[in-house]
């Protein structure tokens, strides 16, 4: 007979070790589809590592890919900490991006020192608004935010397409559904010459640091943790649960909105409806891998960006499908979920007693 008993005291080493082990196991498991595709796994892993760390350019590409994932990972991690299930980071990302091009692509021709902060603020505000609405529905009417935020993603995406063929369409764009480019002075400056990595990464890292600090050290973080862990006790103790939820909803939405700002004003320059290859959803994976810790989000985002960029480059070198990257990312999430379970519970095999 197999029984499952909770562990008395899950240790800290476990909490950190499990995600790392999960990542390693998921990479090891990726050998199976690699073999099936006819590639030598060891060579493939070599190509992956080369594709991420093999050159400054490769590294820069990986960091570029990690930047939006840090933003959306933080958005998910903070909301999930309060048990506010924001699945809508993808939509909030596009709201942020729309705000950025709305103000930044010529509507206001101000110097960079004015324009850039304005783009960032408006983008964050648009994302925040995108999360406040479902949170209001949750608090006021008990509408499940998993459903509302998820469905809102599609509404926003269709709204975006409408805007890109309407008010936001680039008049010089030959009819393509894309926005006019953000003015040069409104762009986030690049970090290195001739590389794509941009200062959005710095903003993401600073925000991760602030989030980590505030969660552990501030009254705001205390209330957030209390609301997430036991809302009834928090309410009984006099914490305004709804205010905490609205607060974290705004911050979560703003972070997702910043992912959009960072992609538009840091990387692409203009907005299309394929700006994000699912960064909002991948952010959830990042947050889960990170154990909902803001510092962990940075590490997890770097890992997942490495897998994506590495698999891309490996698939080109070895001639296997780049969908392998999605496979590794999915498997690492499954491994973490199983690993998290094993960290909390032990599985015992007991012999049947005599009958």
């Amino acid at each position, binding site marked *: 007979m197999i029984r499952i008993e909770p562990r008395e005291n899950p240790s800290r080493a476990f909490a950190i070790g499990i995600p790392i082990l999960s990542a390693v196991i998921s990479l090891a498991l990726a050998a199976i589809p690699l073999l099936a595709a006819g590639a030598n796994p060891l060579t493939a892993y070599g190509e992956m590592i080369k594709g991420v760390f093999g050159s400054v350019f490769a590294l820069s590409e990986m960091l570029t890919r990690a930047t939006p994932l840090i933003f959306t990972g933080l958005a998910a991690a903070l909301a999930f900490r309060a048990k506010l299930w924001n699945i809508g980071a993808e939509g909030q990302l596009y709201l942020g991006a729309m705000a950025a091009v709305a103000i930044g692509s010529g509507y206001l021709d101000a110097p960079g020192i004015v324009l850039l902060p304005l783009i960032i603020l408006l983008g964050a505000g648009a994302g925040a608004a995108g999360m406040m609405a479902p949170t209001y529905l949750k608090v006021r009417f008990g509408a499940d935010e998993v459903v509302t935020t998820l469905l809102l993603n599609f509404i926003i995406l269709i709204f975006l397409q409408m805007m890109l063929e309407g008010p936001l369409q680039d008049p010089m764009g030959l009819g393509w559904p894309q926005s006019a480019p953000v003015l040069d002075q409104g762009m986030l400056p690049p970090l290195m010459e001739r590389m794509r990595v941009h200062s959005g990464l710095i903003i993401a890292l600073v925000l991760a640091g602030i989030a980590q600090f505030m969660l552990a050290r501030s*009254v705001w973080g205390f209330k957030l943790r209390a609301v997430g862990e036991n809302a009834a006790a928090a309410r009984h*103790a006099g914490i305004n649960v709804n205010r905490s939820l609205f607060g974290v909803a705004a911050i979560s939405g703003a972070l997702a909105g910043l992912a959009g700002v960072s992609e538009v004003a840091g990387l692409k320059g203009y907005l299309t409806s394929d700006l994000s290859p699912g960064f909002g959803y991948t952010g959830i994976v990042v947050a889960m891998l990170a154990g909902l810790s803001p510092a962990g989000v940075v590490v997890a985002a770097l890992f997942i960006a490495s897998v994506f960029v590495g698999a891309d480059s490996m698939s080109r070198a070895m001639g296997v499908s780049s969908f392998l990257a999605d496979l590794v990312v999915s498997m690492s999430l499954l491994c973490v979920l199983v690993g998290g379970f094993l960290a909390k519970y032990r599985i015992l095999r007991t012999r049947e007693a005599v009958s």
Partner: protein
Amino acid sequence: MTDSTVLRLNGLSKRFGPVVANDDVSLTLAKGEVLALLGENGAGKTTLMNMLFGHYLPDAGSVEVADENGVLHSLPLGHPQAALAAGVGMVHQHFALAENINALDNITLGSEPLLALRRNRQAARAKIEGIIEHSGLKAPLNTPVGRLSVGERQRVEILKALYRDARILVLDEPTAVLTPQEADTLFENIKAMTREGLSVIFISHKLREVLAFSDRIAVLRHGRKVGEMATADADEKAIARMMVGADTPKVARTDMAPGAPVLNLSGISVSGRYKRDTLKGIDLEVNAHEILGIAGISGNGQSALANVISGLAAPSAGHIQVDGTKVPKPSPAAMVKAGIGRIPEDRHHEGIVGAMSVAENMVIERLDDPEVQSRGLLRRDAIRDNAERLAKAYDVRGPGVTASSRLLSGGNIQKLILARVFERAPRLILANQPTRGLDMGAAAEVGRRLLEARERGAGVVLISEDLDEILGLADRIMVIRDGNLVEAGSHDREKIGLMMAGEPA
């Protein structure tokens, strides 16, 4: 009554990690006997019965159950189905009934083949009515269980066990939810059933009922059997000593003249979907130096009253005054600010945030306090020092103040809450079921702290389903029944019991 053994537990042991829940416990039960299993909370009573019933697998030991012919067979362990088939029935403290279907279906539920095409309800009804006639366990069979009283529900649970031909019945704290009169009826029914050959084990920590209704008593402490005797030879003091391992700490209270009113509720109504959430225009006054006991059967509006005083529920009519000042907009924070200390009914669910540390839980009600925070940042050293000090003063034992509070035992969680509440020297203390589930030592500590606060000049509202506790601590008693609150006028157990049951006293 014959002397044939129907059940034998041989050297049962069970460990949960480092905790020894049962250590080499052996018991026998004779046909037609009522065995009381007595012990403090955490003594291992429920664990022992869960092993008998197959919910837990013992680490060592065996269980033997007699068949219809009185021959003992060893029971395969860890299989509730096997225990059921052998004729062992258990009635848990928390009922397992489906509220939206009637008693008859609840009783037959699970004892019919899953894929049967037709149900023979007539036969089932006849069998149940036969059992009711023999045992006196009256329950309306056609009413949805949700509309039955707690006593009736419990009888349905027992009927469910008897319907499955239980020859051994285990009752886990059967009187916890009953009025004294209902409890007496229950025991009379049990007596009637034992005359028909049923054997009963009942788990309790109430000495009074154990002495009155059992044939034999076994006492558990720290997972070991520390004593066993015929009830006829038992001595109350000796048993109490056996349970706690020392003389029961007696709560000493002195009479005290009440001071000025600290809490006034006038015309407070709360409208709720259920009876337990409803108050119908109650008036209540608590004075300084006074403990007001609220007696009543669970679910008669105690939760609503507690929620109003702790700020969780907004009254639909009436107003609340603390120290003569009206509380304009009641909320938990406003009540704490007005000087009300709250000991919640469900300490795990409402009292603490289990995932947060002991130290954090000790300051959770005063996050605005400059001692706890400055400019929005937590003063972590001050919070830890505060917790170290309080843990010492209130004897909160556990793996340290920075460890998760869920690692504490129930008694220590309650001490944590006491520390948090009493440290602020509240004007009024709301204690809702403050000793439920606590062992005698911890319960006495709660009583002592409440009396200490009363001496200091605080008023106390003590809501409890344990009438003995109210009789022992309260200066004045009110009875809550159906959302109404009436003055009991005296400390007469009989009269209060009748008022709780809703009969004119």
